[in-house]
């Protein structure tokens, strides 16, 4: 029985890995090919090979094509991947410590807290100190929001859906009001940037920004994978996890910092992109089960896939236009959230 089960698990894991890899590769190539300047898939491949030091015949000879790929499209694709991974892992970690599959950085207000922090950085003027200053402020904003939501919405070691969502409403309202106030007092340059945060966009991503997000995401991902086993035990409830040797208080604090780091760094550079942390871990859980080690790794890859494809859609659905990606994910994520809510309500026979 145990052997048959592990074969089955391996098969599911393999199928998922191959599917995600194919989607990611297809999404990357399509994103690099499509755009105002037509580039062939062969040129994309050739350019990538040349950057690795392999000379080949496919590489573009036109320097405009080359710079379009390396200055505009590749950094944008890379940003989509790292931000998607960061948000999906943040969602998975949040659901683990809240013991609730509906917890998500966007829904409960962590993202808007981070956006408020970033906006403050701009209006006060510390943004002039560099990209890291905005990221730091976004992190602090996200951290405060996470702590608030966590300690307000928990009771007896679990979070009820109603309390969680109500807390989210309050945090989102407060952060929204803060953003509106900053919009009101800011000069026109800062105003544009703040509006950009509220909708989320990958437009204009630079390699220097990608590097910061990638670094923080890598740290967050490794930390989350290390904590995967304690997350599993936490599913039994806080008391039972403690009986099994988990230092719940420490796990809680470390996890909250991870969520704030991942959300903060993503929001600081691309604005609020909601529901990624909700949809991706849920889909992965359905595919490979709730064990956190594979779940967190799969969520990172799944998040990357989702954002690469969403961004592709965002900039190709309106010809010549560039839709805010946050708008797109909310358009899909909103109904999905509603479906989850409805299902959970039916299962537990109430808004428990």
């Amino acid at each position, binding site marked *: 029985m145990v052997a048959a089960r592990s074969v089955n698990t391996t098969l599911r894991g393999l199928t998922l890995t191959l599917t995600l890899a194919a989607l990611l590769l297809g999404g990357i190539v399509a994103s690099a090919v499509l755009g105002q300047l037509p580039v062939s898939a062969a040129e994309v491949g050739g350019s990538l090979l040349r950057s690795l030091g392999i000379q080949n015949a496919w590489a573009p000879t036109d320097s405009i094509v080359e710079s379009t790929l390396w200055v505009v499209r590749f950094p944008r694709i890379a940003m989509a991947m790292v931000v998607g991974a960061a948000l999906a892992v943040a969602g998975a970690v949040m659901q683990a410590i809240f013991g609730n599959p509906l917890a998500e950085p966007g829904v409960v207000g962590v993202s808007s807290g981070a956006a408020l922090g970033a906006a403050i950085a701009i209006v006060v003027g510390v943004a002039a100190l560099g990209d890291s200053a905005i990221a730091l402020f976004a992190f602090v904003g996200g951290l405060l929001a996470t702590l608030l939501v966590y300690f307000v919405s928990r009771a007896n070691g679990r979070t009820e859906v109603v309390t969680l969502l109500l807390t989210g409403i309050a945090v989102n309202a407060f952060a929204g009001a803060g953003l509106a106030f900053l919009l009101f007092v800011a000069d026109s340059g800062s105003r544009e940037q703040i509006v950009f945060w509220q909708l989320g966009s990958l437009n204009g991503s630079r390699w220097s920004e990608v590097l910061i997000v990638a670094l923080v995401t890598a740290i967050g991902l490794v930390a989350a994978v290390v904590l995967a086993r304690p997350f599993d035990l936490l599913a*039994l409830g806080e008391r039972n996890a403690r*009986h099994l040797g988990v230092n719940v208080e420490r796990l809680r604090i470390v996890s909250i910092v991870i969520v704030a780091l991942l959300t903060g760094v993503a929001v600081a550079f691309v604005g609020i992109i909601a529901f990624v942390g909700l949809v991706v871990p849920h889909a992965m859980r359905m595919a490979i089960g709730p064990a956190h080690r594979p779940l967190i790794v799969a969520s990172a890859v799944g998040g990357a896939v989702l954002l690469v494809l969403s961004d592709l859609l965002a900039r190709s659905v309106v010809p010549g236009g560039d839709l805010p990606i946050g708008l797109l994910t909310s358009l899909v994520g909103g109904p999905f959230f509603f479906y989850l809510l409805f299902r959970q309500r039916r299962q537990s026979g109430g808004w428990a």
Partner: protein
Amino acid sequence: MISARNVSVRLDSRAILDDVSLDVAPGEVLALVGPNGAGKSTLLSVLSGDRKPDSGTVTIDGRDLGGIRHAELARLRAVLTQENTVSFPFRVSEVVAMGRSPWSRSLESRDDVAVVNNALAVTDVAHLGERRFTTLSGGEKARVSLARVLAQHTPVVFLDEPTAALDLRHQEDVMRVARSIAADGRAVVVVLHDLSLAGAYSDRLALIAHGTLDAIGTPSEVLTAERVERVYGLAVDLHDVGGHPVVVPRR
């Protein structure tokens, strides 16, 4: 093995436990009984290290419980709580295997598969191994949770009302499991409501009333008609069935 001395717990200046002292010895099943709200569960959580007493001490093998790290404590005692929900749809076999986690990266972890399979078998849930925990009935959840606690395989096992959700046969099964743990030289502390069940399966019985230890001793010493009537406020008859006291309310 476990030794509580003059333990008191207060909640808003009301005494939940008042000056309770007792010892738990290896190889015994100690039942904690008493009316609702008497402090049984509080005593259990103090003995298991969940709750720090406001005064008094609890030691395990002579060491103060409060000074032992979470990870080490998890190798000394296991606890079956009354609330057993699982937030995500883990499989039954995965939930039971979680009981082995305190032993990961130790020599004992080589026995993981055997211990888990044995725990699944003695709690009669082996056939549920592939099911999702969240789809089980109340009684099945209770037995799977017991299996997880057994898989932890600790010298001391605490069971807080393990029979509450179970049918007659599974109640007897659980108490037989408790006896076999004791026969293995380990200790079991179990909170029970059914006095006859406690009388039949425990070596010693501690009767808690109003936060104090009213009596402790063998079942036939503790369970007298006079004492049960006084503590529970209900007239009862005591019968002897096969050497074990059976308590029947006078109707």
